[in-house]
């Protein structure tokens, strides 16, 4: 039995924040993350239970909802609760994802232009308004993109790929800044 303290480290993105032109990339801490996968026919009940416990219902496909914490659609029959501990939800598979993701915030007026160089999706404000979220692909990485504000996008990728994600983003920011 030891007198032992484990020190937490953040995903290894390299040095952040970084600013290129009008855009800034920083590492965010979205707090505890829990995936919620309701079992067959349980989505409604799970949504109700979640709402009762947290005030947040399961949002529709491609959207997210925020309150005390936040919940976003995350895939087929799958949602991701962030910034709060998950309540007990008997009708769903809950999985702790807190350490599984690296979360980066891209802020500035040219977010759509930067992301156009990285993901095959239309992320302009009109097509991807505040509250929109999507799963997509970036340089071989499965990512999640959420619009958190008119000039703010949040990008998540696997924690082990933090460095590649940051590199890809900064390169795109540099190329947009150079135009």
């Amino acid at each position, binding site marked *: 039995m030891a007198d032992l303290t484990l020190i937490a480290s953040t995903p290894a993105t390299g040095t952040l924040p970084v600013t290129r032109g009008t855009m800034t990339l920083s590492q965010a801490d979205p707090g505890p993350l829990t995936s919620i996968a309701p079992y067959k026919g349980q989505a409604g009940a799970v949504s109700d239970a979640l709402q009762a416990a947290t005030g947040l219902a399961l949002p529709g*496909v*491609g959207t997210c909802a925020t309150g005390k914490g936040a919940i976003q659609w995350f*895939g*087929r029959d*799958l949602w991701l609760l962030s910034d709060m501990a998950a309540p007990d939800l008997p009708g769903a598979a809950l999985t702790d994802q807190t350490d599984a993701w690296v979360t980066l915030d891209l802020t500035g007026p040219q977010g759509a232009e930067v992301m156009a160089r990285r993901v*095959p*999706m239309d992320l302009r404000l009109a097509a991807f308004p505040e509250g929109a979220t*999507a*799963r*997509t*692909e970036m340089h071989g990485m*499965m*990512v999640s993109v959420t619009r958190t504000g008119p000039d703010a996008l949040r990008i998540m990728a696997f924690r082990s790929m933090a460095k590649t994600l940051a590199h890809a983003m900064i390169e795109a920011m540099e190329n947009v800044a150079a135009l």
Partner: protein
Amino acid sequence: MRLTCPHCGTRDLREFTYGGAALERPTGDWGPAWDAYVHLRENPAGASFEWWQHDVCATWLKVDRDTRTHVISQVTEARA
């Protein structure tokens, strides 16, 4: 090429993986039906039913694609 995921909407090919011909898995011991399922494939000029996965949302899809025109007439969840 673009496919319309029933969840995510129309997306670029790079988000998908081809999963082979959409065949029904036989039951029971090995026999001609299994041989056909594992080994034999049509090479249709025209309608082709295929499994694809939308990797980013994990949904397996059934895609109805015309091999001559590349027109995708239908995409549904695999077991919709």
